[in-house]
């Protein structure tokens, strides 16, 4: 296609250089398309980014661990050759209200002994539960692919085929797994885990996986799905294993970007897109804020569905019905992130003196389900949790390259921090939020306040402003049942949009958020199929 009016012309322009945009670009470029990625910020990666906020300290600013990155993407894009190295994160410590602790590690035998210290019954159930969840992760893995089973609507033959295939695989499961799958889709995470366990800190810590990034409480139905979502991950073939990329999560984006560049994609930073242009009802390219026009035969947006269709698209392009559906898609961010630069590692007073292994894992501030429920109620009341759930990690203890020698980085994921506050603004309350997180952890690690060199507080408004994630939702939209599978982002839409040649490739699409790359890869497959008029083999797209 020839360039017009002085603008450059491409086969595909990708709005946003998040990890999914880069993944999509890499696959499209490998299929021979001329691709350009346009990133608003000065740095690539979107929410999968490492930045030196405090001099000498490299923060994985937003996303902080990796588990869900699809192994086929690592393989097909040869990410290891492009520099990706993932170190294991080992264990979860839960300090308890009575000054004790529960500390589970990857070594199963050690963990069983530890749980037995609190409940014999739970230790027995733990093995069964772990096996069941591994089976569930294996079962849902094919669902993460591009053909989400379509629920209802005979009009979509591929979706129907997906559904039939799914039904057949479901039929092959033994009853306990069938039951667990239904429950994971419909139940609350607290009810789900409480079927097996009685020890409150264990129940709370397990069910806390059901609230991460989501405005649901552990006793609210729907949270069990979030739990499952976090179990889908695998590192080197092992399910429910969390890893930390050397150099922070930005190293993942860096490796994918390198793969995209090698395949011929052009990556531009500080190139904010102002709007998507259309001609004859089809996407025709983009105009940058600088006024520069770029033409392309397809436009793929890594921005979320509301930003793409509601902000970047000319008003009036969608029908009233389509516009209403798009605006009905729910974001409601409810998470915050606080990154600390530390002069040393804090001491958790519940542990025996001299314990160091704990820093290689996570510390979960989740002493009881009631604690998590109260944290949720604060958010419902329009304020950040006075005693929040915090998932604390020490990336520098695993990967010393992210902090100066002897110094450390502490990453705190915080739930809940509602986007909408009942009173005041996040700009007024940012530091109070940071102080609350600090004070909450300091209850269990009293020496923490004296170790602080610097900190970065990300509230939902900061997540929205910095990364362009609407309402600060880290998954580009809530992972609610009606917003999953063929309902994500809108019923039956998949990666396509109501505008021809305009596609979505971010976490607003199936299978949703986290550093998985799946939406980016799936979108590339869908785009290529549409271009060729016939379904390409994935290997072909990857070749």
């Amino acid at each position: 296609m020839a360039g017009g009016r002085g603008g450059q012309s491409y086969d595909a322009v990708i709005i946003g250089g998040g990890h999914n945009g880069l993944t999509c670009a890499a696959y499209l470029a490998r299929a021979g398309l001329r691709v350009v990625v346009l990133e608003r910020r000065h740095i690539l990666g979107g929410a999968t980014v490492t930045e030196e906020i405090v001099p000498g300290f490299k923060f994985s600013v937003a996303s902080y661990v990796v588990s869900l990155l699809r192994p086929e993407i690592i393989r097909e894009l040869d990410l290891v050759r492009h520099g990706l190295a993932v170190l294991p994160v080992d264990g979860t410590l839960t300090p308890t209200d009575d000054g004790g602790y529960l500390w589970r590690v990857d070594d199963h035998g050690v963990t069983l002994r530890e749980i037995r210290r609190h409940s014999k019954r739970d230790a027995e159930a733990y093995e069964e539960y772990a096996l069941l969840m591994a089976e569930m992760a294996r079962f849902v893995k094919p669902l993460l692919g591009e053909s989400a089973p379509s629920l209802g609507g005979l009009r979509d033959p591929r979706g129907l085929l997906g559904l039939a295939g799914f039904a057949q695989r479901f039929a092959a499961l033994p009853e306990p797994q069938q039951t667990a799958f239904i429950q994971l889709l419909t139940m609350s995470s607290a009810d789900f885990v409480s079927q097996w366990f009685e020890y409150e800190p264990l129940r709370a810590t397990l069910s806390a996986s059901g609230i991460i990034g989501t405005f649901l409480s552990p006793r609210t139905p729907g949270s069990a799905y979030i739990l499952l979502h976090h179990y889908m991950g695998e590192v080197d073939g092992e399910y429910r294993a969390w890893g930390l990329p050397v150099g922070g999560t930005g190293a993942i984006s860096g490796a994918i970007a390198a793969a995209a560049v090698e395949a011929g994609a052009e990556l531009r930073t500080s190139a904010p897109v102002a709007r998507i242009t259309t001609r004859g009802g089809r996407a025709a390219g983009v105009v940058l804020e600088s006024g520069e026009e770029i033409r392309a035969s397809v436009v793929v947006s890594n921005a979320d569905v509301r930003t793409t269709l509601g902000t970047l698209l000319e008003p009036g392009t969608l029908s009233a019905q389509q516009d209403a559906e798009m605006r009905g898609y729910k974001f409601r961010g409810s998470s915050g992130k606080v990154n600390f630069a530390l002069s040393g590692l804090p001491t958790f007073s519940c542990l025996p003196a001299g314990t160091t292994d704990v820093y290689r894992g996570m510390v979960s501030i989740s002493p009881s389900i009631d604690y998590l429920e109260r944290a949720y109620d604060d958010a419902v009341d329009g304020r950040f949790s006075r005693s929040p759930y915090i998932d604390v990690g020490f990336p520098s203890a695993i990967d010393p390259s992210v902090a100066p020698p002897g110094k450390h980085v502490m990453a705190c994921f915080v739930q809940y921090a509602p986007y909408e506050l009942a009173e005041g603004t996040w700009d007024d309350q940012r530091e109070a939020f940071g102080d609350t997180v600090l004070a909450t952890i300091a209850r269990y690690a009293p020496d923490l306040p004296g170790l602080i060199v610097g900190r970065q507080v990300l509230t939902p408004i900061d997540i929205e402003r910095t990364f362009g994630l609407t309402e600060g939702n880290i998954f580009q939209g809530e992972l609610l049942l009606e917003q999953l599978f063929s309902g994500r982002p809108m019923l039956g839409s998949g990666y396509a949009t109501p505008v021809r040649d305009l596609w979505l490739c971010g976490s607003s699409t199936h299978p949703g958020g986290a550093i998985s790359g799946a939406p980016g890869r799936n979108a590339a497959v869908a785009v290529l199929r549409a271009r060729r008029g016939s379904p390409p083999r994935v290997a072909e797209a990857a070749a």
Partner: protein
Amino acid sequence: MKYDAIVIGAGHNGLVCAAYLGRAGLRTLVLEAREAVGGMADLALTVGRLSPTVARELGLRRHGLRLVQPEVRVFAPQPDGRGLTLWGDAALTARELADNPLVEGEDADRYATVDGELRAIARSLGPVLSRIPPDFSWTTTRAAMRAAAGVARSDERLWHFMPMAVRDLLEGWFESDALRAAVAARGLLYTALGPRMPGTSGVLLTDAASSNSGLAGQSVFARGGPAAVSAALADAVREDGGEIRTAARVIHVKRTGDRTTGVVLEGGEEVDANVVVSNLDPKTTLLDLLEPEAIGPRLSWRAANIRQAGATASVTFTLRALPVFPAAYDDGRRLRGRILIAPSTRYLDLAMRPSRYGASAEQPLLEMTIPSLVDESQLPSGAGQVARVVAQATAFEADAKAIGDVVTRTLDQFAPGFAELVTDRKVFTPRDIQREYGAAGGHPMHAEVALDQWFEWRPMHGLGGYRMPLDGLYLCGSGAHPGGGVTGAPGRLAAARIVGDLKKGRLKVAA
């Protein structure tokens, strides 16, 4: 004495099931622990969800049932004396809403359209509720394909709307919070769920589908109270040769191997039958009526995990005179339907919040009827009026007096002077409901009405088709699909399942 079929419990679903079994020619005996038939249907404020199919097929009118529905459906007062009314006629409602200062934006104009939209979605749910759910525990590819085709044929909007939180559903429809709350409350009634909980939309849609109603819902009363429904059903049972014994508590289901052989009553009497149908809740049926060896450890564990914690209290007031709600002062007809204390979505959040902690609300969600306004036969001699109330959230352990006080105080805020009108009150907490009616957990719907206990997996995956794990044992109460409320639907579908099994030779009754 040998019967073809025994129904344990003369709740309305047990009676419905027995009546259908009798019609199919089975010698049927209903055994009821209490002195009276009807079970928890007594607690129902309105009976507009009673299946018209059941009423017609069992000839309930002929058996004396008279239903009346006032034109008003819902009156929802505010604590400041304002309020809104939803009438059966959507156009009339819209006209009134247009002049109501509680109603903002385009809501009044949109009302009739949204009403039609809700009815359309509910209609597509209708077939799901009136059929035996498919078995999802397939083992063959063919069965899997059949189920997949069934799912593909369903209206895809159901998959969108059913899992939603009722608060989100209403936010998509209306701007006015008072109107949102008045409709959203229907997604919570009799449950332990809050308005932000996924699946509450499904509760509302189920209510709309089974009462063939729109945004306003129904306000159907039985002359003589809900007991009149049970009385008509009992008549229908007897007409077809069925026997009903009250004060006959079944304590055990007998079996030989995997086959049901009859029941044992308190006192030791045994009654034999090849078909035993339990109208009790699923937990009691599986864990109390059967010995653990009958169902094995896995099923015992699953049954123990059925969620049945009730969060509803029932309060009946005798009043000196009609309470005065300022916003209903102009037109007494407004009080003849359901009076709903659900002034805002925030109120609903706070009213239901305690249920997540096993506690009771300080400001509960209330639904009240004054049946004596519609049906004078329900007026005790000398009393001014009778008001019946359900209150949520109420903890299982709640103290009856405390709950009575909370409900009285709350009503006094919305109808100033209410407290002084009370001459008598009777409170049923969830614990009282359990004690009086035998429902484990005191849940008026037997098992929580939520997405994880719905359809094929109500009460649990693989047992959604009314067949219990012993040959010849069935479940016919609210703990089975399509769930609670005075519908008669589970009773009817259980009977259809039993009769079908007999025809297929899967089941035999004594010759």
